[in-house]
């Protein structure tokens, strides 16, 4: 993704302030990532006095999406941006490419292997990739199941440190 801080500098002070609030809203299922890290904030703008925040779903069935919308609204209310609206948009499907570098680092520290490579080559090649263990950095890992604890993760096992771990799927 394009360097977010340079984009932000071009925004009005008010919109920058709103982004600062969004930086405090965490993904309820991966509570080390902010909604900004996750790349689901597609647009923030002010229209006729109302702050419009456009967000996109990661997976269509993701049960966290409604919670995220409520959390965003709540955080903005707390920061005195009381006239806001959160919209769901689909114009382009979300991709793990939109997760920030900072977000990928936080995932690894949290024990979730961040998405590796690009999703452009198609998801089906995904299962044959070498995934690096987030705990001991070993490449000697194997997939247990393509479907993990949430829609966005697969379940892996490290054959060196023997720990099971979640891998945030390239999507």
């Amino acid at each position, binding site marked *: 993704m394009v360097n977010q801080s340079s984009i932000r500098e071009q925004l009005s002070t008010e919109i920058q302030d709103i982004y600062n609030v969004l930086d405090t809203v965490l993904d309820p299922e991966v509570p080390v990532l902010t909604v900004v890290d996750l790349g689901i904030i597609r647009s923030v703008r002010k229209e006729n006095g109302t702050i419009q925040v456009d967000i996109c*779903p990661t*997976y*269509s*069935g*993701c*049960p966290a999406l409604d919670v995220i919308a409520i959390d965003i609204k709540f955080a903005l209310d707390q920061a005195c941006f009381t006239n806001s609206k959160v919209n769901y948009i*689909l*114009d*382009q*499907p*979300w991709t793990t490419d939109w997760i920030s570098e900072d977000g990928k680092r936080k995932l690894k520290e949290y024990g979730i292997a961040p998405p590796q490579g690009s*999703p452009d080559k*198609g*998801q*089906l090649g995904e*299962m044959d990739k070498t995934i690096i263990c987030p705990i001991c950095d070993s490449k000697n890992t194997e997939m*247990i*199941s*393509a*479907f*993990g*604890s*949430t*829609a966005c993760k697969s*379940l892996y096992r490290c054959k060196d440190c023997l720990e099971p771990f979640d891998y945030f799927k390239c*999507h």
Partner: protein
Amino acid sequence: MHNYILQLGDNSLILGHRISEWCGHGPVLEQDIALTNIALDHVGQARMYYQLASTMEPGKTEDDYAYLRTVTEYKNLLLLEQENKDFGYTIARSFYYDQFHLLLLRALKSCGNKDLSEIAAQAYKEVSYHCRFSSDWVKRLGDGTEESHRRIQRALDDFFPYTAEFFTPSEADNYVSGKYGVDLSKLSSQWSVIVENIVREATLTMPTTPYPQLGGKQGHHSEKLGFILTELQYMQRTYPNSTW
């Protein structure tokens, strides 16, 4: 157009509901979680279609389509309301449908309708995982033990007559084919090649049938859909307009 979107939404909701019945009953924990994830994808996709449909019909919400329609108003494919029976039947049903679903979404992704193509692009990514899951299991069961081979073959045979409905156009299909060029007959030959290759790789025999089962898209369902709706709609029917 409205009917076409409901057709897609109903397919997703009914299959999602069926697969969700496995929640807590999967053969092993990983497969239980996989099936539940897949069910969630389908229900999420159904919501997107119903939300789109509700924008075309003032006063309706996505919930109205799921909770307040009767069996004859549902337009899902007959295959998708068939019971889970054993793991083999569940896999066979998903396998036939997932391969068709992926081809259909690929066509819809590039169709001229912006709303539909956006949903299709989102769903396509998810359904490629579904395809991988169900076709891997067809191979594993087919090329597994004598018992697993026998049971997946039986399931493929029993469900095959329902697959003709994928490619038998309804009025809504014809409308979309005419306007946006999504041609089911083209998908049919692609589907046959893909499915036959996987079935062969799984050391199984491709079924044939002279008796296609049709009618779901027109609202002519088996008694099985009624049982699904009874469970799905119980709260809204018993306590109308209840929310939480």
